[in-house]
Structure formats: structure tokens, C-alpha cells
């Protein structure tokens, strides 16, 4: 991957990649691995971009697909194999961001299933229901219902933690 490609095609959308990778990892080491893999995959797949959607949407797709399919063989990483039933003690407390509320929100997002994580990230990035549906591969009506449920779950997970 050339420096130009990284500078011109990935860096302008780096916030998307970072947010998605943060939501799918518990540690800085994993985050960096996922980030590198996403960048690599964006570069590898660049020839498949046919301008049917915006480049940023395409970057979302690649980032989510890579994160969804990354399965790590780390002894202490339960996240990829049983995220729905992830025991609380398995969540490594994250201090990735300066804002403590944001860290707690990410910790809560990590307790969602892989698909729900993708949905809520896209929602928080102010993507429309239709765009989310296009990226995830479902229809827009279902997204609204699912987002309501995810928000309720997040509210419960964050209850009492954030003022």
C-alpha cells in the first residue's frame, strides 16, 4: 500500500475506521491489529470500488466486514467467540479516549452483539436508516426497531454510570 493511497483515501476517513475498530476490540494491541487489517483490506479491495456508493460508505462496509470476520486466537480474548454472553470481568476497562463518558459508552457498545455494534455505530455517525440497511444488508424498517432496542440495552448498561 502506497503512502499516497493511505494519505488520500484512508486518512480522510480515519475517524470511521478508528471508531469501528475501537468498538470491536478490548485492548490497544487488538485495536492496532484490527486497524491495520482494515486499512490493508481497503487497499486490497480498492479496485472493486465502482462508485455505486460514496467512498466513506464503502470504507464503512470494508471496516465492518473486516471487524465482523476477525477472529483472534488470544487466550484472554473472549469477545469474538461469545460476545453476547461476555462475562463482565472479561471486559477490559477501556481508557482509549480522554472523555470518560465516551469510554463507558464504548465499553457498553462492546457488550452488544457484533451486528448490533455495527448498527449503533452507523446510527451514531448519523447515517440514515437506509444507508445503515444498505451497509448491513437488511431493510430500513428493521433498522429503526433494532436501534430502539439497542438504545434501551445501552441505557440499561450505562444506567448509573454516567451523569
Amino acid at each position, binding site marked *: 500500500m502506497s503512502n499516497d493511497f493511505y494519505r488520500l483515501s484512508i486518512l480522510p476517513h480515519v475517524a470511521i475506521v478508528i471508531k469501528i475498530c475501537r468498538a470491536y476490540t478490548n485492548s490497544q494491541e487488538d485495536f492496532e491489529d484490527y486497524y491495520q487489517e482494515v486499512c490493508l483490506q481497503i487497499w486490497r*479491495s480498492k479496485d472493486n470500488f465502482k462508485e455505486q456508493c460514496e467512498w466513506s460508505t464503502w470504507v464503512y462496509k470494508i471496516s465492518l466486514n473486516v471487524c465482523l470476520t476477525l477472529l483472534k486466537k488470544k487466550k484472554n480474548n473472549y469477545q469474538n467467540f461469545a460476545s453476547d454472553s461476555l462475562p463482565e470481568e472479561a471486559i477490559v476497562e477501556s481508557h482509549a479516549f*480522554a472523555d470518560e463518558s465516551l469510554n463507558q459508552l464504548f465499553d457498553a457498545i462492546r457488550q452488544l452483539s457484533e451486528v448490533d455494534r455495527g448498527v449503533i455505530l452507523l446510527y451514531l455517525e448519523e447515517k440514515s436508516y437506509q444507508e445503515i440497511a444498505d451497509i448491513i444488508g437488511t431493510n430500513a424498517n428493521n433498522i429503526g426497531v433494532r436501534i430502539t432496542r439497542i438504545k434501551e440495552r445501552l441505557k440499561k448498561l450505562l444506567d448509573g454510570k454516567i451523569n
Partner: protein
Amino acid sequence: MGKSIETIWKKGFLDSDSLVAPKLNDLYNQKSKTIIDKFKRMMKINIYVIMVFAFLNLGLYAALGTPYTGGLIFFLFMGVCWISIKQGRTMNNIDASLNSYDYLKSFNSWLEMAISNNTKVMRFFYPLVFLASLMPIVHALKTGEVTNATILNSGFHLVYGIPTITWIIALVTAVLIFVFGGKIYKWDVNLAYGRIFRKIENMIAEMEELRNE
């Protein structure tokens, strides 16, 4: 909770330092961790192991006095390698820019197709290898003076110097291996990749649930 998640999100990312990209180190040589790349690596290793095994068998069977059987096993194993290489090439056609659901479905379809094709091949491969592996034993029994005399004096009906009943047992076993070859192969594959398969299936099921809500 006092703040909405939307507010936390917006305020949290106002600080530009929150989104510092990690440094990319030697990206070309990064070991890829995607399932697809992991499969590619595993398939490559498997192919190399089978090739080495094929050559070892060639030498081993020649040493045991049955070089033609060694040749047959060599070609059987090389055939398996050739099929694996061909399958590996078709895996490259999976487009990572598809939506998540279609991407996983494409990969899953490829997996199912590969397993289905391999199952058909393995149903013939296993019994043929089994029968071929008996040839050195037959050769040893026939060339050994004591064993050969014992067989000849046993009173059994013989075919090619070996009791017919032995041939029948071997053939029945080969037929059973043929019948259960598919299941043996699937059990074997599931042992190695089962956890990844279940993970993919769970993700697809969850997405389908979302599509059908």
C-alpha cells in the same frame, strides 16, 4: 443516565486527540487475520503437508516392495492438492466490498461448495488409500516363506495367493469407508474449523433475524 448516547458520542469526539490513528507498521507483511486469509494460510499449509506426505509415501511403498502402489497413492494425494489449489483460487473472487450480510453469505456459500466437492472426492479417496495401504501387507505375506506356506496350507480358497475371505473383508471395509466417507470428512473438517463455522453461522442467523423483523 443524564446524557443521551448521542450527546456522549458528539461531545466525546469534539476532542480531536480522541481519534489518533495508530502507526502502520510494514503493512505488506502484516499477517492477515481475516477469516478468508486465515483459510488461505491454512489451506496452503495443508497442501504443503499433503505434498510432503505424498513424496514420503512414494519412497516408503517402494521400500516395502510395492512401488506401483506408492505411485497410486502419490497421484491420489497430488489430486487432492490440485483440487485444493483450484478451490483456493475461487475463494479470491469473494468481494469484500459487499454489504456485511452478502459478504458473509458469499463466504459461507463458498465454504459449503468446497466442503460438498471435497466430500464427493473423499468418498473415493479414503477407500482407495485404504485398499492401497493393504498392498504392502499382501506383498509381505506372499514373499515371506513362513507366511506364504501357512496360507497355502490353510485350506482356504485363495485369490492371488491370499484367502478370499480376507479380500471380501477388505472390500466390505472399503465399501463402508465409501458409504461413510462423507461423514468422516465432515467430522474431520468440523474438528478443525467447527468453531469458525459456527461463528459465521451465528452472525448470518443474527443478520437474517434482523432482516425478517
